[in-house]
């Protein structure tokens, strides 16, 4: 009988705890939809683009920091909370985030941002994608992206496409703001056009410059600025370089007179610095996303910083 009493007591305690949790949840839960459209992006650049076209109607946050390798973000449950509250998820697509985003989206329990919903925007949809494999591929080629190169967001043409996609999707989700999004997009696109002319003028000296890159993540920038990529430090995507490859690369750089190695801030620098030293080149650590270095607070600052690093000192 005493045991029975104890069980009843335990039941009351457990019930009480559950009840308290429910009450707490109800008390803390947002009462109704806040006025702002909550945009969650995978990379910081897209969060900035969403702020540019969304203005004060949106609140944009990124899951990954600009200092992270966007291939290998850890799918931490606190990111689930961000996605749980999102009205719109903007991701790079082309399987860049395949290793971490899908379990977060499923775990978010947010019907709005599931695949196929208006709140799920694959920003690559209108991008003229490069490096799409034309022949049969397998992973003997390394950790390749079968749908093409996903590192497309830096050239202004592509950033403009993404901004337009975000604006259109925001208008679909929040029709009351359609006019504002359109106006913001026009303003952003005009500014982008002005800056593009200026950037291209500034970058004229590097046109035709031969470069080696760490990962195949600068193809779009090279295409835009006319850089000539002659090799990569990684022999294959995601595969660390064996000494034979490095020796070969140094030889190639000497022969072709390559003076610059481009890499992101999240790759280790020792090997690259060794190659640079042996080949008489310089290692240029380029920011690849907003937030990758102090002071890069938005897309325009990102491109400015890329050009500043790229131009000979």
């Amino acid at each position, binding site marked *: 009988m005493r*045991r029975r009493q104890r*069980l*009843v007591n335990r*039941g009351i305690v*457990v*019930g009480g705890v*559950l*009840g308290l949790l*429910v009450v*707490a*949840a*109800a008390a*803390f*839960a*947002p*009462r109704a939809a806040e006025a702002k459209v909550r945009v969650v992006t995978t990379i910081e650049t897209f969060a900035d683009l969403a702020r540019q076209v969304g203005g004060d109607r949106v609140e944009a946050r990124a899951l990954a*920091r600009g200092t992270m390798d966007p291939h290998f973000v*850890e*799918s*931490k*449950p*606190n990111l*689930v*909370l961000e996605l*749980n509250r999102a009205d719109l998820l903007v991701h790079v697509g*082309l399987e860049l985030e395949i*290793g971490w*985003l899908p*379990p977060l989206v*499923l*775990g978010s*329990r947010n*019907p709005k941002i*599931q695949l*196929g919903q208006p709140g799920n925007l694959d920003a690559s949809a*209108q991008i003229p994608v490069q490096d799409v*494999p034309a022949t049969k591929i397998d*992973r003997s080629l390394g*950790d390749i992206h079968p*749908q*093409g190169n996903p590192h497309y967001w830096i050239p*202004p*043409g592509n950033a*403009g*496409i993404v*901004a*337009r996609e975000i604006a*259109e999707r925001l*208008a679909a989700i929040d029709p*009351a703001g*359609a006019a504002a999004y359109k106006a913001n*997009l026009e303003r952003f*696109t*005009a500014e*982008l*056009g002005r800056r593009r002319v200026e950037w291209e003028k500034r970058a004229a000296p590097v046109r035709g410059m031969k470069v080696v890159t760490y990962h195949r993540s600068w193809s779009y920038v090279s295409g835009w600025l006319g850089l000539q990529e002659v090799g990569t430090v990684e022999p294959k995507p995601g*595969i*660390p370089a064996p000494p034979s490859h490095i020796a070969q690369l140094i030889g190639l750089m000497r022969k072709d007179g390559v003076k610059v190695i481009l890499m992101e801030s*999240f790759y*280790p620098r020792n090997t690259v610095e060794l190659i640079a030293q042996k080949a008489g080149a310089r290692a240029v650590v380029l920011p690849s996303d907003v937030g990758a270095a102090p002071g890069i607070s938005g897309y325009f600052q990102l491109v400015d910083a890329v050009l500043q690093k790229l131009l000979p000192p």
Partner: protein
Amino acid sequence: MTAMTTRPHRRTSVRRTRWALAAGLALVAALAGRGEAFAAEAGKRTEEEGSAPVDEAEIARALQADRTAGATATAPPAVPAPAPLPPRGFQSLNPDVSGIVDFAAGWFSDDDGTIKSGDDPQSTGIKVQEVELAFQQVVDPYFRADIYLTIPNLSGIEVEEALLTTTQLPANLQLKAGIFRAGLGRQNTQHLHLQDFSRRPALNAALLGVDGLRAPGFEASWLVPGLPFYLVLAGSAFSVESAEPDQPLQTFGGGGRASLTYVGSARAFFPVSDATSIYVGLSYARGKTSQSVSDPSAARPVADGAGHTLYDGLGDNLYGADLYVKWKPVNQADTYASVAWQTEYFLRQIPSFSLGGEARRQTEGGLYSQVVVQTARRLYVGVRGELLGAPAGDNLRREVAGAASVTWALSEFSRLRLYGEVRRGHRFLPLEATGASPDRRTAQALFLQLEAAIGAHGAHPF
């Protein structure tokens, strides 16, 4: 005897009803809370709609606006016009298919000396530890499906998991249905290729059976909204298979086909800093014990001629706690180093039963703790300690084990691992309740494991 066997049943059903009621009330309260929010939201929406009724002229204007939006976007040279793009590769509605193989070659000093999980190498020699085939795809706008078939130790195909998960439920709810690994602690939910050691810790096999708690069932889980941290509460019910003959006492699976096993859990995540994360879980399960012997005449004490032991079919509870702490700096340019510490504890309690006419209760538990340090980009070193029988009981004797592993990940998709362990304890003998003290012995194992994955295998949760 009759009274003895029926009374616990009645008490169990009363308790179960109480639990079900508590859970039901909580769910209703939760839904009501959300319902209010929905109502408020809907009301707001109607107000908005009321102040600005949608008419055809407006739709026409919007369509026109869209058209002009497209037109203005094409005007500046900065952004190319949206144009039909060539298809990117071959589109297919086939599910993502992947295969994972685990080969192991090695040596046990005593092949029968330890309790083994179904996906452990079973004996000395060259082994195909496991072949896993996975098929994963979104079903429709409402479900996704994940099917994992496994062939452990070439012993025939098994369904490791085959489950549907909802994607469109409101109020932060999610349902799972099918056969799946119960959300009971951390290791129980993970497949072999997520293990950092070539063998799983013996804890789950010793308490829950060779495959851990994996059974047909359903689960409802709720992401608690409005908290400043991640908290998921989950409740599930399973029809657990009864234990194979001559196995350690299986905590659940007894009580006949209609008897269900219930699992409840709470998991919370705290990102202490960018680099450091803490993931904690508490779980509780209740059901009925299961145990049988193949030769009733050879073993005592046996409850009946069918080989069920006296420990079979007793109502019991399982309490679990798990902790996962990970430190990994976000920028790998500084360092590739990371540290992950994982600990789990389970306690099994059989509140009351009768053995030889004597009323008894039994509490048995065990834990393991492991640390895995990433020392270089592709190198991981792990150590693990296990303590079974803390506290010890008739069905879980004291056993202490230490293991170490060195893993070399050649790429994201293949890895080579060296694993060694030393284990000291009472060799498992079923039905040791006679009081005879079993041998204490030491056993070692050394294995080289090669693991490879092909195809598109879905990403795993943290």
